[in-house]
């Protein structure tokens, strides 16, 4: 039994491939939990970051610096009355958020957090990922249609048109990245997510820098298309609050609404991980070519722990800056506790076996986090596109550009 448990830890493949059901389930559980935490954290971070961009403080009341705000929100949503419109199509209305959430979570089956840190490694991984994430539009269309109301219907129509349009540009960018994987001596490319990262490792270059500027352009096409795919500003037309009140989820409330929320954020994380995997070297640490040798390995392996310690330090700084007043005692203690938690994690990450086991995951998550920050930044900066302009960008700019990049990549690759 113990052998069965530890067998995977010694293997150099993913549990799915090894046929190790136990570890696969463990991974699934970990990903689910991690994703939920990430979404909660994103909620808090988005509000804080946006607030600081807009010269205000954001949530400050629930917990120190509003740290418990997302949990309060979640509680509020859970105990809120769940309204279903009288004329709605009950079954479809009920199904829609589930479909969206399911698709958003299913894609994480193949996301490679590390060389062995994925539930499984499909040989059609990227195809699977793009395909399944495109299914989420079904959920949105179902939600819009089932609400039996005008604004959701318009939102659903917009959403389906938008996602179908941008999927093409996205697909072209993805294909050009896949082409780059086939530049080895055997000439065999791969669709496997892990294979793609390994190809970057083997070619000693992240694909974003490959065939400069082709990789870069493909990456930017994908970066724009992924914002549109996830219905985020400035492409958030399906839920444009000033036009359609809330778009396809106008009629949703309470728990169902929170499922949409969850799905939106996990979809953002999912497409970000595609981008990271395809172009930004997945779990590979930066400068793995120029800064080599044991010493540098050592230094880079310390960074995860150090960064957590830095977070902890920030917490303690906050503790010292708290007003010294009775009313703030709980808050101060809470913040200090949080700092201790972070510091503990940081220290844990210094333990050598953990350190080497986890740094892949750290680098992957750090890259995804940067991408998520970009999402927030866009939202704080850009006005919203109009629908026809959005279509114009999709069809007249990104699509030809994508085709061009694809053709050029193929050409350069052959040469």
């Amino acid at each position, binding site marked *: 039994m113990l052998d069965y448990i530890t067998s995977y830890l010694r293997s150099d493949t993913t549990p799915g491939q090894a046929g190790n059901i136990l570890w696969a389930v463990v991974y699934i559980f970990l990903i689910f939990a991690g994703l939920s935490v990430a979404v909660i954290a994103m909620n808090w971070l988005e509000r804080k970051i946006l607030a600081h961009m807009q010269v205000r403080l954001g949530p400050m009341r629930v917990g120190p610096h509003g740290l418990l705000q997302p949990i309060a929100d979640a509680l509020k949503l859970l105990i809120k009355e769940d309204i279903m419109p009288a004329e709605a199509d009950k079954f479809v209305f009920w199904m829609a958020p589930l479909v969206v959430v399911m698709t958003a979570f299913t894609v994480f089956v193949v996301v490679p957090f590390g060389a062995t840190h994925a539930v*499984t490694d499909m040989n059609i991984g990227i195809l699977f990922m793009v395909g399944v994430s*495109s*299914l989420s539009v079904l959920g949105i*269309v179902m939600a819009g249609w089932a609400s039996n109301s005008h604004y959701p219907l318009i939102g659903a129509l917009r959403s389906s*048109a938008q996602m179908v349009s941008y999927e093409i540009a996205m697909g072209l960018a993805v294909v050009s990245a896949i082409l780059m994987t086939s530049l080895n001596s055997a000439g065999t490319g791969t669709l496997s997510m892990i294979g793609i990262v390994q190809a970057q490792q083997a070619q000693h270059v992240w694909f974003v820098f490959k065939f400069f500027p082709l990789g870069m352009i493909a990456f930017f096409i994908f970066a724009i298309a992924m914002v549109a795919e996830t219905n985020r500003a400035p492409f958030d037309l399906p839920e444009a609050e000033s036009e359609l009140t809330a778009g396809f989820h106008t009629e949703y409330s309470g728990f169902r609404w929170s499922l949409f929320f969850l799905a939106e954020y996990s979809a953002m994380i999912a497409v970000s991980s595609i981008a990271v995997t395809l172009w930004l070297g997945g779990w590979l640490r930066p400068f793995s070519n120029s800064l080599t040798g044991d010493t540098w390995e050592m230094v880079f392996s310390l960074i995860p722990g150090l960064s957590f310690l830095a977070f902890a330090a920030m917490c303690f700084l906050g503790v010292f800056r708290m007003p010294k007043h009775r009313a703030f005692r709980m808050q101060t203690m809470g913040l200090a506790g949080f700092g201790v938690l972070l510091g503990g994690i940081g220290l844990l990450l210094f333990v050598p076996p953990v350190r080497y086991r986890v740094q892949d995951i750290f680098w992957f998550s750090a890259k995804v986090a940067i991408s998520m920050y970009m999402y927030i930044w866009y939202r704080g900066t850009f006005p919203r596109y109009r629908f026809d302009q959005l279509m114009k960008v999709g069809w007249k700019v990104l699509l030809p550009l994508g085709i061009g990049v694809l053709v050029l990549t193929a050409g350069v690759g052959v040469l």
Partner: protein
Amino acid sequence: MQPVATTFFFYFLAALTLAGGVLVITRKNPVHSALALIIALLAQAGLYLMLYAPFVAGVQIILYAGGIMVLFLFVIMLVNLERSQREEQFNKQWLLGIIAATALGALFITIFVRGRAIFPVHIAAVAEESNTQEIGLMLYGNYMFTFEIASLLLLVAIIGAVVMAKKRI
């Protein structure tokens, strides 16, 4: 990736497929039909996976479930008429049609049963790992010409659809 519990999954997916099919042709509301069809298609993608055809399965999901069905839903919403749901759902020849279709099905089954010997029980193992690559080689090798024709067909379909659906060219 080895399929697990093959027998169970086969019957499960086959039942899902057929149930989806039945729902497609019996639902009043076209949206429900479409959703049932999507379920059938996804179950079928599972069957493909069991047949060691992951690429086809992927294409099935991305094109059928993600593309064509969205198109269907889109159109259904555009032309959704309450009237058509209140009206008679089956046409005048429905009895005749069912009889003919059943007869056809019966014939198929008869032939399969009679010709059972042709189909081997033991299926030759196909390398799943290189499935995508081999399909790619075939598409661009043996079936080059067909592939080109398919692309032409798609082009014509695009133009045709645009011409028909656009109000003013």
